[in-house]
């Protein structure tokens, strides 16, 4: 039972962590709170099926074998985010963070309504990797294979990303930009390259969340991604805005707390689970206003 809860917490927290990382990357380089991230996720989900308003979905990209499908969807997510940066956020680079945020929100509405017009309002079913839909025994717990897959995928992605950020030049530049963008530029980091890179990475991470979600739930809905995005924002702030390890840690923590609340709250209180979760968030912020892992750029300067 307790081992099972650990797996539940890890699989939910893993999804939040990846989403939070996608948001933190962009916030780090251009102080943009990207409200379109949820729609990047939804668009990546719908990219799996052919555009049609019919009730029954026909797989498009989703019919490819996993070896081709995964890179194709990651590229799709990355491409979408890079295009969004080029057409919407680049012209706004010197606007206030509020204007940027509202622009991202407008972009989100745009994408959502485009999906609605192209695919219709009815949720659709996607059968992605049905072989994952069986339980396996692991120690004292019986874990759905799906859950193991989610946890494994999250682990691999986080490790890969950590390597990339630590070992490659673009990774170094991104970390530098996230710490202090102004200083990084002075030291020769090219803004366009880093920002495009951050968007591409963020879009690819949105596509990862999309794949995990589809594998987990088997459905596509124009509103999906929204709830995850909200939790991911909160995780980004709790982690200390711009701190990448912080975002991951806070995302994992939020998923774990949510799973624990669901497991241990009395039945009458369970519908109020999210109220408890968000109440805890406010408390944490009151005690650590700069987040759990504050980055240098989050502190006000005199």
């Amino acid at each position: 039972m307790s081992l099972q809860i650990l797996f539940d917490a890890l699989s939910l927290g893993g999804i939040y962590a990846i989403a939070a990382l996608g948001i933190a990357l962009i916030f780090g380089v251009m102080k943009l709170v990207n409200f379109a991230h949820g729609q990047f996720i939804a668009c990546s989900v719908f990219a799996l099926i052919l555009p049609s308003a019919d009730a029954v979905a026909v797989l498009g990209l989703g019919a490819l074998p996993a070896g081709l499908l995964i890179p194709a969807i990651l590229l799709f997510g990355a491409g979408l985010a890079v295009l969004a940066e080029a057409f919407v956020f680049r012209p706004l680079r010197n606007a206030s963070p509020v204007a940027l945020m509202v622009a991202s929100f407008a972009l989100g509405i745009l994408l959502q309504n485009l999906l609605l017009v192209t695919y219709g309002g009815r949720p659709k079913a996607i059968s992605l990797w049905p072989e994952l839909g069986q339980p396996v025994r692991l120690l004292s717990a019986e874990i759905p294979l799906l859950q193991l897959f989610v946890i494994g995928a999250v682990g691999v992605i986080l490790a890969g990303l950590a390597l990339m950020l630590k070992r490659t030049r673009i990774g170094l530049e991104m970390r530098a930009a996230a710490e202090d963008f102004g200083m990084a530029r002075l030291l020769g980091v090219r803004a366009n390259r880093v920002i495009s890179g951050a968007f591409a990475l963020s879009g690819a991470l949105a596509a990862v969340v999309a794949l995990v979600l589809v594998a987990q739930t088997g459905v596509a809905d124009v509103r999906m991604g929204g709830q995850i995005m909200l939790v991911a924002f909160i995780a980004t702030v709790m982690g200390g805005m711009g701190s990448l390890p912080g975002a991951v840690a806070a995302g994992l923590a939020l998923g774990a707390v949510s799973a624990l609340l669901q497991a241990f709250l009395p039945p009458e209180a369970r519908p109020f689970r999210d109220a408890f979760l968000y109440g805890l968030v406010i408390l944490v912020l009151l005690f650590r206003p700069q987040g759990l892992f504050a980055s240098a750029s989050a502190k006000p300067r005199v």
Partner: protein
Amino acid sequence: MSPQPTTPHQIRRRMAATTPVLLALLLLAFVLAATLLGDRATARMAAETLIRVTLVVGFWIFAGNSGVISFGHAAFACLGAYTSAWLTLQPAMKTLLLPGLPGFLAQAHWPVLPAALAAGLLAAALALISGAAILRLSGIAASIATFAFLAMVNTIWANWTPVTGGTSSVVGLARYVSPWVALGWAVAAILAAALHAASASGLALRASREDEVAAAASGIDRYRHRLLAYTVSAFFCGVGGALMGHFIGVINPDSFYLSLTFLMLAMLVMGGIGSLSGAVVGVLAVSLAVEALVRLEKGVTLGTTTFALPPGSQEILIALAMILVLVFRPAGLLAGREIMLPARWVTGRGTSNQ
């Protein structure tokens, strides 16, 4: 008669005083045009727009003066709408739909105006309590805390079934909100916002928005001024929520959640968050643009051909327009300026002395 203003500062103050008057006249002209020239649907559009003016001006009192973006104001509208429902619904209806209401509320059968005031006051009280904690935070942390606050209120409202009806809508609200009622409250919100902005507290708050450290060094207690603005702001959002409820007749926690939050934010930023006039103009511009696109979608007959946009294109076009406005005018349509009479008019001499 007051003496002729002489110093630039006096002239400026007098010019600022004309802003709320001009905005009120603008709204009056809008209502007159809509009710005299349009059909019933146009009148409803006018009422809806003015309710939004009340909400967005209320929102501006905090967000505009403090520079802190709040995502929590839809929660105050939610509380306001439900307070008015609790106070004005038929007691028999309440025992049926909301059996968990305490005795006093279950028996209450108030007229609509005191109920709207109570809605505002209760929202203000909630703001005072929640703000006391949240506003200790700065910048983005405060914004996200208000977000968490909104999500909390929404979860509670959607599940506290005996008192709020949960996800089930509360029905039977008297639909008394005509364009004129909405105009009254919108003008009240504008006057309050102008008075607050011109008050010592409003000035202090804007000073701390411009430069936090310098303001603190000048002895400004930012927290206290923010809390005051937050409370006043929540009052009008509470009233706006009550008006929304009595405009549609049916309320549901879902109508006071993310879409309302973003609508308010979008209108404010489109008009320009830096000025009261920006808030009002933003609401008018977005509402009119949406209405125009909706009509285009229904089809417009030009000569012998009917031209119609495909269904669903209104949302797409409005989102595109928002992005374009932000790209070309990042500070909003008014870019922080106020609508006011020119200096030579307020000095009464025919020419400006500056």
